[in-house]
């Protein structure tokens, strides 16, 4: 048995090393199958076609790929700008609604922008954009409609309330000199301010030169006046209330502020 095994191992080793002449010879006698002429010509045609095809085809495509990608990016960017741009212009009123209390203070950018707005206010203001002082109710009434129609599909403005809110917390008492600017007129300014000046929050702590409350809805303005009173800023509160009375002479003040002098 052992000798049989060792004989097999020797034969196997000689087979592996290519010395098994008998088996090799027998294998060579097997039908010598070869591909037929049809196959030969088919393969030759394949090889010829491949060589005949200009290789620049692939290279051209490879060269155009980054160019096409860049063009696509530019087109997409332009599309976004075209799509968002007009919405941004239509948005101020809606933004004012989405974060009404977030606009308590004015950033430096807002101040820069509100100054010319104040000047234009002294001119006969175009009626449609300014809620007349005589009719303080409309803005809040009209606001929900705007909010409904615009709040959902615009992601960009949603990012604004947070930093603006931090602005308010950074300068809770920055509501003094009320100059001119109606809430509606100031709305676009707030919009631009929120968009363009993210660093403005750091400079908000500086006392505001004018009463930022003029840009608020009456209810919020009054709430701020109350807050000033609670913060022992009576003078500022009185000044702000006087400004309020001037702007909203027909507004029925709540009892706690009506007799405040």
């Amino acid at each position, binding site marked *: 048995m052992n000798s049989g095994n060792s004989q097999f191992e020797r034969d196997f080793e000689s087979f592996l090393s290519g010395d098994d002449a008998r*088996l090799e010879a*027998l294998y060579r006698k097997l039908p*010598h199958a*070869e591909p*037929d002429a049809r196959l030969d010509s*088919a393969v030759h045609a394949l090889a010829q076609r491949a060589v005949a095809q200009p290789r620049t085809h692939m290279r051209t495509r490879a060269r155009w790929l980054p160019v096409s990608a860049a063009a696509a990016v530019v087109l997409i960017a332009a599309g976004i700008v075209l799509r968002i741009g007009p919405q941004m212009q239509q948005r101020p009123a809606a933004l004012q609604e989405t974060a009404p209390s977030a606009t308590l203070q004015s950033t430096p950018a807002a101040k820069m922008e509100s100054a010319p707005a104040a000047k234009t206010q002294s001119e006969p203001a175009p009626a449609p954009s300014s809620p007349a002082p005589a009719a303080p109710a409309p803005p809040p009434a009209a606001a929900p409609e705007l909010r409904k129609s615009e709040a959902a599909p615009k992601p960009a403005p949603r990012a604004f309330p947070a930093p603006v809110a931090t602005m308010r917390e950074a300068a809770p008492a920055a509501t003094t000199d009320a100059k001119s600017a109606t809430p509606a007129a100031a709305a676009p300014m707030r919009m631009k301010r929120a968009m363009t000046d993210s660093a403005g929050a750091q400079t908000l702590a500086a006392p505001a030169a004018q009463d930022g409350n003029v840009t608020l809805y009456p209810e919020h303005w009054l709430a701020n006046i109350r807050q000033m009173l609670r913060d022992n800023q009576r003078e500022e509160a009185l000044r702000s209330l006087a400004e309020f009375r001037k702007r909203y002479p027909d507004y029925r003040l709540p009892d706690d502020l009506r007799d405040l002098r």
Partner: protein
Amino acid sequence: MDAAHSDEKLMLAYARGDLRAFDTLYARSRGMLYRYILRSVTDRAVADELFQETWSRLIAARERYRVEAKFTTWLLQIAHNLVVDHFRRARPQAGAEETEAVMRELDAPESDLPDRALSDFEERRRLQLALDGLPAEQREAFVLRMESGLGLAEIAQLTGTGQETVKSRLRYAFAKIRERLAE
């Protein structure tokens, strides 16, 4: 094209667009490749299809060819992958035991002859039957060894298995063929 050029140089030349290099390469390899495929799949129509597909893939990949392995090994590797895919698509093959049983049954009357002298033809027929009766992996290893003269390492690389596995497959194949021829 100079016949002294190695297969690898010919392949590189074809990759650069030299069709004559391809023709030389093809003439050198066609028989070996075809027999490897035919003895693996044992069906002429399938062999034709896989043969053409092997060359088609080689042609498509010509620009990616690098002289990291022998050209023959690369070519056979493409064919091997196609053969494996073919077997995966086909129904499961009969196991080795089942094949053995069928072969035993077929050959029983003839092997019963006491004074049978094996003709050359008979030897070849037996070898062919033995090859056909081998499990696919063993047959493939045996054919690669006999047809292309590949060593264990090359067969292992080509089939994606270990050398010991290849050696084991060859050992089983060799034993069965010997047994078959000795009957």
